[in-house]
């Protein structure tokens, strides 16, 4: 008898084994961060020189029902030496997952990432940015949601109902890396009378055809990126007030692996009451594997940023090029270096960033970050950061 036939019969006769589950596991990390700013701040209210900070991120995960249900809890808290807005806490995730056949449901506070490019995350809109954490905008606040995913062999369809809005965090008066006027987050304004209770929704389809992956999405609801309007506060001091408009945003993201090339494109069209616009970022990552007969991989990344509002845009990227390199050592300590520069082709403003990390022992990780701004044009959104070059060192303990 054929081996596969025997196996098939055995498979029918034997009751299928029970899937092992991850039951009630705590993990997380504690990180100490030190930043040093060599230049004095623009405002006397802001701190100079160094800043120490401590962050704690505990995680709990429990699954049951043959792995078809799961509960996730991730909290985050930071204590910052100088910036009281950066001392903050958030529930990153608190949700229940239910998988039934081709459907996966998620109820509660969650986090979702959309997109493919490296130097800007243009189409990623579900979660609000926790801007006090880092300029790169990769830290996100937990978003209350009901998410339904319909899985197919060609990809997936995702539906989101977002019943509550999260306001963006901004550095406080003493903080660095901020706008010249302080953003007064207590006085946020909304276009919708429902304010934070406006129900946003989104849907996304993801199609995979061989080496190509295509994401098509639409979001309707409260803008994640607010307008910042100058007003006078109660004491007659000028401040900025965030105003959250209602927007409709359609997006496309595409990636394709063709040999050593990884091609990427993100594009959006946003309809809003102030300045409806189209924007895109696209480029490639080319990887040289095992350079110099070693285990090292070197990736060259080039991405172009476009925004049809030009210099009027409230964002740093309108006609900019990012050029960078990623070096992966593939060693036991997972040493990595990512360096890149963004050049504004109109004004020649430049910013430069280098990130490096390395594991120490089995449960510590040391990371470094250097951010430089040079030749920033007075018209550029980054002009207020011209004296905010910094060096950051972080040591994390993972448990």
């Amino acid at each position: 008898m054929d081996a596969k036939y025997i196996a098939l019969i055995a498979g029918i006769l034997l009751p299928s084994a029970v899937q092992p589950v991850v039951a009630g596991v705590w993990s997380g990390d504690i990180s100490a961060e030190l930043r040093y700013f060599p230049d004095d701040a623009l405002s006397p209210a802001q701190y100079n020189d160094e800043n120490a900070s401590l962050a704690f991120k505990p995680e709990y995960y429990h699954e049951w029902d043959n792995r078809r249900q799961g509960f996730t809890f991730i909290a985050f808290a930071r204590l910052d030496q100088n910036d009281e807005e950066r001392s903050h806490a958030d529930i990153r995730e608190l949700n229940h997952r239910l998988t039934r056949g081709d459907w996966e449901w998620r109820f509660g506070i969650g986090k979702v990432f959309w997109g493919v490019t490296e130097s800007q995350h243009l189409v990623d809109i579900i979660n609000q940015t926790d801007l006090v954490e880092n300029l790169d905008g990769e830290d996100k606040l937990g978003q209350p949601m009901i998410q339904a995913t319909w899985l197919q062999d060609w990809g997936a369809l995702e539906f989101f109902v977002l019943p509550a809005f999260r306001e963006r965090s901004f550095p406080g008066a003493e903080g660095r890396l901020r706008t010249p006027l302080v953003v007064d987050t207590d006085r946020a304004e909304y276009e919708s009378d429902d304010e934070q209770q406006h129900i946003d929704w989104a849907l996304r389809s993801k199609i995979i055809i061989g080496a190509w992956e295509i994401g098509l999405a639409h979001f309707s609801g409260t803008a994640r990126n607010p307008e910042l309007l100058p007003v006078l506060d109660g004491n007659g001091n000028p401040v900025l007030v965030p105003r959250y408009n209602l927007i409709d945003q359609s997006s496309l993201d595409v990636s394709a692996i063709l040999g050593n090339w990884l091609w990427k494109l993100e594009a959006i069209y946003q309809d809003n009451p102030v300045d409806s616009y189209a924007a895109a970022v696209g480029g490639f990552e080319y990887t040289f594997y095992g350079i110099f007969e070693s285990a090292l991989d070197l990736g060259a990344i080039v991405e172009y940023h476009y925004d049809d509002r030009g210099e009027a845009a409230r964002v740093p990227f309108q006609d900019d090029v990012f050029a960078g390199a990623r070096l992966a050592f593939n060693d036991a300590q997972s040493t990595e270096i990512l360096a890149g520069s963004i050049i504004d082709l109109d004004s020649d403003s430049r910013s430069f960033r280098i990130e490096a990390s390395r594991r120490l022992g089995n449960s510590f990780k040391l990371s470094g970050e250097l951010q430089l701004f040079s030749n920033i044009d007075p018209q550029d959104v980054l002009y207020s950061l011209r004296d905010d070059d910094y060096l950051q060192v972080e040591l994390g303990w993972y448990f």
Partner: protein
Amino acid sequence: MKHLWILLLCIGLSSNAMAETPEEKGLAIAKAADERDAGFGDFIADMTMTLRNRKGNESVRYIRIRTLEGEGEGDKSMSIFDEPRDVKGTAMLTFSHGLKPDDQWLYLPALKRVKRINSRNKSGPFMGSEFAFEDLGSQEVEKYSYKYLRDEACGEWQCYVTERKPEYEYSGYTRQIVWRDQAEYRVVKVEFYDRKNALLKTLDSRGYKEYIGRYWRPDEMFVQNHQNGKSTLLKWSNYQFRTGLTDRDFNSNTLSSVR
């Protein structure tokens, strides 16, 4: 005269049948081994990797593996990292395709980001270990050309010794010498020769156990790199076969739900 012709013809035929070339015999062994392992359906297992450098410093990786056997296509597999702690929750999904490049996705839990990754780095080290990605991928018959070398005792077993050369692109090896036992086609030992055809490393598989009355898997796989002095010990545990995994458990769109 007529009888002589028939006699000669018979001798010719039989010697033809007997004179299997070393290439044919090597391929036949590989096919027999593949058949011997077919029909497992799916399996899950835990893997502890201990990396040891020349100075004797050790670091440990703890990884869970889920594999679904492909029907007429390559296997699908998922690796979920539990340790080192800083990469906990990272998951790698691979659809193997034999000679065509594999499809591969990496899930990064910190950003909740699923990245399509290039599967060309076959010769690159897996998690900094002495195992390359290509050593741990599914070993479809068409991935190599074969040449039977000899029969040889291997421990308490009798082995076929076969040379195989990668037919897929971007391998880090010119050739491998494989020792397989003749009773159950278990891989006992593999010698790997680098792109310059120098001996790079040796893999020893030990402590074979039979699961669900048919499928043999080793408890330990030990790789010694002869060029840099580093070694990796891979210990397998908690093997379970036919757990009921389906294609839905291997979808890049739900990698963020995988733990």
